[in-house]
């Protein structure tokens, strides 16, 4: 393979790309319409916040699309430099605000790696359970939201209804529905409340019921399939070169999941029997399909972890005032939206010297200009919905 192959991987994809370009050119020559610039966002119901996409349209076909970011940029990388390590979790909670516990995990793991501390087994289990529950809460909402994007109003209400069971459990143990700020270097803030394990298992049953329901209501619907199948195909190589990760790349048939491959120490996914789902098609439908399977698999992971949760302390021996020894560490975990990592440089101070936040949606959405070329206006929404981003995760 050479560098010139970056735009197409197989002959079929090459052909598709060429024919798309040709179709563009033909439309322009035949009808000779003057293009229209349509500004989608920053205030638009399909942009999950304040993403703005400037599209050049020819009729309803997109000639060029250019996302404009920064309406929510909060400068967490800079702010993290003037905060102590425990304080940073409060910031990073707000990156992906629907699956916030998962944002804390990689940062805390990176700090633990630098300090060479390891959380006790019980803390690791609870951490993994909460990580997985925030994934469930996040992805359920994403699935319901996809329904709204393609015009079905009902799935989002099911999603909100059943996400509440999960959020209630997260709240019961952390005290926060959205911003738990519960992870600590060396362990967790608190132990589980009484009766929590059984309640969580009940919530997981509800989650699986939701999956069955939504599979019949949405995934089985012919219109939904017609709207999503073959739309927004991400070829493997192009996706990887853009840094597309998580479900979006597994939907393109890449069998890679940080929970299984390259699992950072401090999470216990290797103690559980579970499966990484992939789908070969790479289109919007396959991404949503993999997402649904992830929710199912996640609920099973939580169930198994809760069955085997060991007893013991939830906090390792760490000094009260945390000074992290000098060094550099990069820890990535499989977050609801994709691979999230923190590159932490420490100089032995109370605060990190430099934190590079690798957030999933930033990379996932960077493929959008490539994907949106040549599609129709309704497909913009389908593709953005199926890429499933959270604005805080793009703008950090």
């Amino acid at each position, binding site marked *: 393979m050479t560098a010139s192959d970056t735009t197409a991987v197989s002959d079929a994809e090459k052909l598709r790309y060429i024919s798309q370009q040709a179709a563009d050119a033909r439309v322009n020559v035949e009808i000779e319409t003057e293009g229209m610039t349509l500004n989608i966002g920053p205030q638009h119901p399909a942009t999950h916040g304040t993403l703005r996409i400037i599209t050049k349209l020819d009729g309803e076909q997109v000639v060029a699309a250019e996302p404009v970011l920064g309406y929510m940029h909060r400068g967490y990388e800079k702010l993290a430099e003037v905060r102590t390590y425990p304080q940073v979790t409060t910031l990073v909670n707000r990156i992906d605000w629907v699956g916030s516990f998962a944002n804390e995990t990689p940062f805390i793991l990176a700090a633990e790696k630098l300090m060479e501390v390891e959380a006790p087994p019980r803390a690791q289990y609870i951490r993994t359970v909460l990580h997985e529950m925030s994934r469930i809460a996040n992805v359920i909402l994403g699935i319901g939201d996809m329904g709204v994007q393609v015009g079905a109003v009902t799935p989002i209400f099911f999603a909100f209804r059943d996400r509440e069971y999960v959020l209630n459990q997260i709240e019961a143990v952390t005290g926060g529905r959205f911003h738990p700020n519960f992870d600590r270097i060396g362990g967790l803030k608190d132990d589980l409340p009484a009766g929590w394990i059984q309640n969580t298992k009940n919530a997981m049953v509800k989650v699986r019921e939701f999956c069955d329901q939504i599979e019949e209501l949405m995934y089985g619907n012919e219109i939904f399939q017609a709207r999503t199948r073959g739309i927004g195909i991400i070829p493997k190589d192009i996706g990887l070169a853009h840094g597309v990760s998580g479900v979006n790349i597994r939907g393109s048939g890449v069998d890679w999941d*940080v929970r299984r491959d390259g699992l950072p*120490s401090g999470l216990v996914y290797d103690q559980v029997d579970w499966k990484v789902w992939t789908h070969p098609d790479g289109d919007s439908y396959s991404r949503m399909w993999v997402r649904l399977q992830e929710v199912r698999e996640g609920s099973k992971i939580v169930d198994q972890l809760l069955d085997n949760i060991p007893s013991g*302390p939830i*906090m390792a021996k760490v000094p009260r005032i945390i000074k992290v020894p000098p060094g550099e560490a990069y820890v990535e975990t499989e977050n609801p939206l994709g691979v999230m990592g923190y590159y932490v440089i420490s100089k032995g101070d109370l605060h990190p010297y430099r934190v590079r936040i690798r957030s999933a949606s930033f990379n996932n959405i960077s493929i959008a200009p490539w994907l949106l070329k040549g599609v129709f206006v309704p497909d913009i929404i389908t593709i953005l919905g199926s890429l499933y981003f959270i604005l805080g995760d793009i703008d950090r």
Partner: protein
Amino acid sequence: MSDVVETEDAVEVDEVREAQLEALGSELGDAIVETFVKPGDDIWVRVSREAWVEAATVLRHELGFGFFNFLSAIDWMPSPYGRDMDSQVDVTLEGAEPKEPEPMEWGYAGGATRFQMLARVNDVTTARGVTLKADLPDDDLSIRTWIPVYAGANWHEREASEMFGIDFVGHPNLRKLYLPGAFEGYPMRKDFALLSRRIKPWPGIVDVEPMPGDDDGDGNGDGNT
């Protein structure tokens, strides 16, 4: 803690990573300035500025590191405003008066200049990554773009450009990504004063919470009242 990782931790010399490093070395030759391997953890490679794109090409096309993870930069000059939080001495109430910066210390795989490129790519089949660094001389903060190799570098380079003032040669669209168009200065540089800290200095470590299972109240020297 898994058994696999435990055994990996115990390894003194990480053969797989050393082999990868050797492969990279045979392709790039002198372009590699310094390397560092943490057994069972990661590889750091510092390449020369000229070989920045070549290193990426070799990594992607020869060694199978197809996944672009992130690209950014590091400013190694300690902040002239002090560390903002280590001691009350650092707190400047009268406004931002720069002091003489402390000497620079570099991280893994060393360094020679104030600004350093930082990038990471992964091999998804083996789930291993490589962290790349490259020094940028102070008088010429420019480097060639990675876009032809890793298309995803586009936005990362725009971000690094606006945050650190690095020029990416060959980038088709090096506009500001996050900041408003007329924004002056490069916020992620260490000498860019964080205004909120200047206006309201850091109060000290007052918010240390009690450890779980530790009920002897006040801790050690944290300024708690």
